[in-house]
């Protein structure tokens, strides 16, 4: 097989370069981090196996599957409720390089698993003005009395379908959109954040998704 000169690219690689942008405020109102290290998969319960699925996830990951739009996490693995008997499973920092394959094995017969790892742009957002920035596009109420740590919502921003979750009390929000819409989401986010000043920080986690992709490519080429 001929060597392929493929290069792995993150969804916002050319748009979200580390640095300070927007208004020259004393302190950036928003900190933006593109997460490129998350293994992602959707999990859909098979009919009649819901109870066994709950037990299998608890046994494998020590997580009680949330029933509702919430996220439950442990040791870098999380399950976010995205619909009735449907979840988005995520593993940070390549906790397991073969996370999705292992998930498929562990939940065989109980759920349908669909690999999503390279399908999403994932941003972590925090800073003093994070709620002010999000309020410009997110049509749901993110006031702490209505949306708290552990809450998840699927909604739209500027006609772009997104998933948003509050990850901690700081607060840090995770905003996700399909990869093909990443540039459109970025157009909205960068303009909305400009008046507060924003900083793009490098992905803070040790493993990068691109490393894993490169490794996979090498193993294909060596066959």
């Amino acid at each position: 097989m001929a060597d392929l000169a493929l290069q792995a690219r993150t969804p916002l690689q050319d748009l979200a370069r580390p640095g300070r942008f927007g208004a020259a405020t004393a302190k950036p109102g928003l900190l933006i981090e593109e997460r490129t290290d998350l293994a992602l998969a959707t999990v859909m319960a098979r009919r009649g196996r819901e109870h066994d699925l709950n037990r299998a996830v608890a046994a494998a990951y020590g997580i009680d599957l949330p029933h509702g739009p919430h996220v439950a996490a442990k040791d870098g693995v999380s399950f976010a409720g995205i619909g009735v008997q449907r979840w988005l499973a995520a593993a940070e920092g390549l906790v397991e390089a073969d996370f999705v394959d292992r998930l498929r094995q562990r939940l065989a017969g109980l759920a349908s698993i669909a690999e999503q790892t390279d399908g999403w742009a994932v941003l972590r957002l925090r800073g003093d003005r994070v709620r002010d920035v999000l309020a410009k596009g997110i049509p749901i109420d993110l006031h702490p009395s209505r949306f708290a740590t552990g809450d998840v919502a699927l909604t739209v921003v500027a006609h772009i379908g997104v998933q948003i979750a509050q990850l901690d009390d700081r607060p840090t929000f995770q905003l996700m959109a399909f990869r093909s819409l990443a540039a459109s989401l970025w157009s909205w986010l960068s303009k909305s954040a400009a008046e507060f000043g924003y900083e793009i920080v490098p992905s803070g986690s040790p493993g990068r998704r691109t490393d894993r992709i490169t490794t996979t490519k090498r193993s294909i080429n060596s066959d």
Partner: protein
Amino acid sequence: MRIICPYCGERGNEEFSYLGDASLLRPDPAGAGAMHAFADYVYLRDNPRGSHREFWYHAAGCRSWLIVTRNTSTHDITRVEFACDVAAARMASFEDEG
């Protein structure tokens, strides 16, 4: 207009798509008079004033099909159910009947 999705909570109607009357059942294509029954089912919809049970799809949210009971003159929504629950209950009642 806002719809309280049983999964997601209260959302604006721009997140949903409307299908129509939820009380109609698709005719049997192999049944007698199927052509006439389908013409009636597809084209001859009533347009009632007042309480109406109708399908809405939460396209930009949890992707659930819902049955919303809405007053067509005031937009008051009195009930929102998962369509799959309504269908399951209907199947169960058919089975009970024999």
